[in-house]
């Protein structure tokens, strides 16, 4: 279906077909690096875009509580639609594979993030916001200097969940021929090349783990006050 011409792995006539093969990695490194780059750049772009949209949206829902119910309800309905269906619906309308996958990923991450940011904002101790109001903070200053920093643990938790989910979701892009490392897995499946499937799988899991740990560290660094009970 979507195997790029000229990049079919060179299966030797030798009968052994190991799941792990360093030789495969060395021989096909340019291909692997392409897929890896595609995977990582899709994930990063999706998360950055989703965050840029989710934070203002959640803040709006927080400042106008009447909107909160409909924002969460709508995100619940949208979340029920599988990414696979979303790719299939958007691709014919958009026509560009990368843009389609990116939009689908952004929508998904967006839903996770909006919920977490909103929950974080709503979970701020009213005594703290009252105190801020009492010493004369404006609404905007309370939001920027009190509520958002206090919501950070919840926001970071949302970012971690959204990122790990997105890394796995990129592979579903295979359904429209643009799935990062998923593309490599699928090609390995079509040619029954075990090492190709396994290498792509391990790399996908590795991206998720590295991103998760990195975000956890960022979360720790930006919320030093949460560490004393750890």
């Amino acid at each position: 279906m979507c195997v790029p011409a000229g990049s079919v792995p060179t299966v030797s006539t030798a009968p052994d077909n190991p799941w792990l093969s360093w030789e495969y990695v060395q021989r096909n490194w340019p291909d692997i690096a392409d897929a890896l780059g595609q995977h990582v750049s899709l994930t990063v772009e999706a998360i950055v875009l989703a965050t840029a949209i989710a934070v203002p949206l959640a803040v709006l829902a927080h400042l106008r509580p009447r909107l909160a119910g409909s924002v969460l309800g709508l995100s619940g309905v949208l979340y029920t639609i599988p990414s696979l269906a979303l790719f299939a619906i958007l691709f014919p309308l958009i026509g560009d594979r990368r843009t389609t996958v990116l939009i689908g990923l952004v929508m998904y991450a967006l839903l996770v993030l909006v919920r977490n940011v909103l929950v974080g904002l709503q979970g701020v101790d009213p005594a703290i916001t009252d105190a801020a109001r009492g010493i004369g903070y404006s609404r905007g200053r309370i939001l920027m200097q009190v509520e958002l920093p206090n919501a950070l643990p919840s926001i970071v938790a949302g970012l971690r969940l959204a990122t790990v989910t997105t890394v796995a979701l990129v592979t579903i892009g295979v359904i429209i021929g643009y799935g990062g490392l998923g593309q490599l897995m699928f090609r390995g499946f079509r040619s029954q090349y075990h090492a190709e499937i396994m290498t792509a799988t391990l790399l996908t899991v590795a991206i998720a783990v590295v991103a998760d740990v990195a975000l956890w560290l960022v979360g720790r660094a930006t919320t030093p006050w949460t560490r004393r009970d750890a």
Partner: protein
Amino acid sequence: MDVLREAFVWLNDPLNWTGPDGILALTAEHLTMSLVAVLLAALVALPIGVWFGHRQVGGTATVVVANATRALPTLALLLIFATTGIGFGNRPTVIAAAIFAIPPILSNTYTGLLDVDPAARDAARGIGMSGPGSLLRVELPLALPLVGAGLRTSTIQVIATVPLAALVGGGGLGVIINNGFALQRYGEVLAGGLLVAALCLVAEGVLAGAQRLLTPAPIRARAAAQRASAG
């Protein structure tokens, strides 16, 4: 939009609904595969969740299982299964979908039993119920809303995953998307996507209704009160 019209023309053709590869047959196959996957997952996850939750042990293990499966793409497991002895088509898909359906059932069942009010547990013990008696007649009914929620989450997730079967030569509604893409008939891709999305939304609605009907009224009120106080 040309593709949009193509999609609706395709969906409006009765010939596409009937027959062995029609929408109705594919939907039935899709739902059967989903049902088998959820049953398999429940068979594994429910006993473990009930046991751990009742004994109040193994919390870390359930969290680790949930997190580990989140990082592993379903596609990877599916392709690995399809490449090894399990065979092409529906079987590897059902098994892969079942494995990913385990964490929601497991963690919800576990949390449901763990969160049973200790006072209720004590009262059951106090009126002379044995451990299993208390589990069956007090703890499980109280945990029911969360157990149901876990089954519902995993069912929707499985219905959303089953379309991947088409990639490994299986059936279900993914076939429409996959064929459309292969033949560059993008109206069909769009139609297939709409069908999968609609099936998920309908299933979610039906399950939400079923859960409401099946939950005993007092527990329903209690769960609603808990939600209200938590929100």
